[in-house]
């Protein structure tokens, strides 16, 4: 187990190193000088020189990379050019919107997918199963940002149950904040719930065909008992894998959805930074998101290996 964790940690470190190199290189090949790119056409040479200095652009390539990575490791993500505040502060504030949103969506997706997948598997081949499979097929095809717009149209414009966007902040109380995140979370959760329900269904159907289920039935358990006591647990392994993977989609999806609802999260921050050519913010934010996703994948791998010794052998 320790050996497994060690090799996974090694590949985690390697992934992060390569990721940081790629991101650094991409930003590095920006046509022209990043400082003049950020300042625009009307900048004075003095201003450009001052910014170059502030950005640490006057060092060698290796010095700059080391400076960036070293800073990130110590929590110094640089200073935003447009906001004039440390990027770390900006990120910390925005994270309180994006992270709860992604987790909210993950919870919704799981809560919807489990019973739906279970029912479809139990009614396999029946009308209910076909109905559910058709609905999930549709759910996968719907772009989440468009579904978000439809939700706004129905629940904010017509029914007026929710506001169409914006975020009151957690200081205003948990209730209003959660309410503001509800429509975005539903929009994010729908495609993921559809995928998850399909995975849940096929995993259950496969498990229910195993010999040990037949044994359980033979010793007198009802279909329901066999499902809940034996099949469900074993079917959960592929389902959990998908849930782990979905976190990365949800975090990235949140970037798009935040734009629909004007939520002040990381996604809005990235796009504002892009339009204002604030490359420091873009570079650090992308690295941070990649780090989060790679870390979650790593944790999921470790969690499985702890739960199921068969998975400890290498791929």
């Amino acid at each position, binding site marked *: 187990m320790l050996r497994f964790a060690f090799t996974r940690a090694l*590949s985690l470190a390697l992934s992060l190193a390569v*990721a940081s190199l790629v991101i650094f290189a991409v930003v590095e090949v920006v046509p022209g000088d990043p400082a003049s790119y950020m300042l625009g056409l009307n900048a004075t040479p003095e201003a450009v020189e001052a910014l170059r200095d502030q950005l640490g652009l006057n060092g060698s390539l290796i010095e700059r990379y080391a400076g960036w990575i070293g800073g990130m490791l110590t929590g110094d993500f640089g200073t935003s050019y447009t906001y004039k505040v440390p990027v770390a502060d900006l990120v910390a504030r925005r994270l309180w919107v994006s992270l709860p949103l992604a987790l909210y969506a993950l919870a919704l997706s799981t809560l919807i997918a489990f019973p739906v997948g279970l029912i479809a598997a139990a009614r*396999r081949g029946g009308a209910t199963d076909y109905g559910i499979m058709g609905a999930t097929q549709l759910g996968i*095809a719907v*772009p989440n*940002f468009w579904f978000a*717009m439809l939700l706004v149209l129905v629940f904010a414009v017509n029914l007026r149950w929710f506001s169409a966007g914006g975020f009151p902040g957690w200081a205003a109380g948990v209730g209003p904040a959660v309410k503001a995140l509800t429509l975005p979370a539903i929009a994010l959760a729908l495609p993921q719930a559809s995928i998850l329900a399909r995975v849940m269904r096929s995993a259950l159907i496969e498990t229910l065909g195993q010999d040990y289920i037949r044994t359980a039935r033979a010793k007198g358990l009802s279909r329901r008992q066999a499902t809940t006591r034996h099949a469900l647990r074993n079917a959960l392994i592929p389902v959990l894998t998908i849930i782990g993977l979905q976190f990365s989609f949800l975090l*990235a999806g949140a*970037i798009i959805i935040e734009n629909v609802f004007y939520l002040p999260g990381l996604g809005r921050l990235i796009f504002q930074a892009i339009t204002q050519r604030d*490359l420091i913010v873009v570079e650090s934010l992308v690295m941070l998101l990649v780090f989060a996703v790679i870390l979650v994948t790593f944790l999921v791998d470790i969690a499985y290996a702890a739960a199921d010794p068969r998975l400890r052998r290498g791929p």
Partner: protein
Amino acid sequence: MLKGGVQLWLGATLTLVFLAAALLSFVWVPHDVEALSIADKLRPASATYLLGTDHFGRDILSMLMVGARTSIAVALVAVGIGMALGVPLGLLAAANRGSLTDEVVMRGNDLIFAFPSLVIAILITAVFGPSALNAILAIGIFNIPVFARVTRGGALSLWTLDWILAARVAGKGRVRISAEHILPNILNLLIVQGTIQFSLGILAEAALSYVGLGAQPPTPSWGRMLADAQTMIYTNPALAILPGLAIVIMVLGLNLMGDGLRDFFDPRVRRARG
């Protein structure tokens, strides 16, 4: 029942309708999509404008047709990039199973898979500027490991078969066997995967152009139309609904076709799925 079932035929029909509309838009559209006529703005559906007009007086149906062209072009070229690079890499890895080459290719795959594709696409378009071409590149890069993996998996199972062994005994090299015997026999896998990546590409293009990082105006694209419609959602909901429906139907068609093709090539799956 027809081989491949209802899914395949429904999916193929939907896909063909969009392909036909996109191709038709090269030679004919009901109204010019670049001609703005403010006098005709926000018209409801009528005999002249079958689906109405947008805030610049452009015909929605014509915009959707040209938008289909944009979506299909971006997704198709992105699939092409993925296949052109991924398939040879997968064949190479399978032909040299367990070698350093295989290891490098597979670990490289894992690495790209570990990245959140949308975030990297945003980075690429942010740095190189938003354009349809950069959207294609951003989506295409993430198709490479998908095709490499599918190709390697399919090829590995073929390499163990007797008739491949016979080809080796006959003196054929690994490259020749890969090209002449392996590739034609994994084509069905590649077609199925291609269909799935095509539909994912359509969704990715829509998302990128929705946030302004895809095709730039005046080129109509479905995602862009949705972004424009968002501010008018209170007054003109139809503008926000139609492009989304186009995306959903196109993606649904492709997904159904992909599932249907899989059953068509491998009827055992259908029976096992029941």
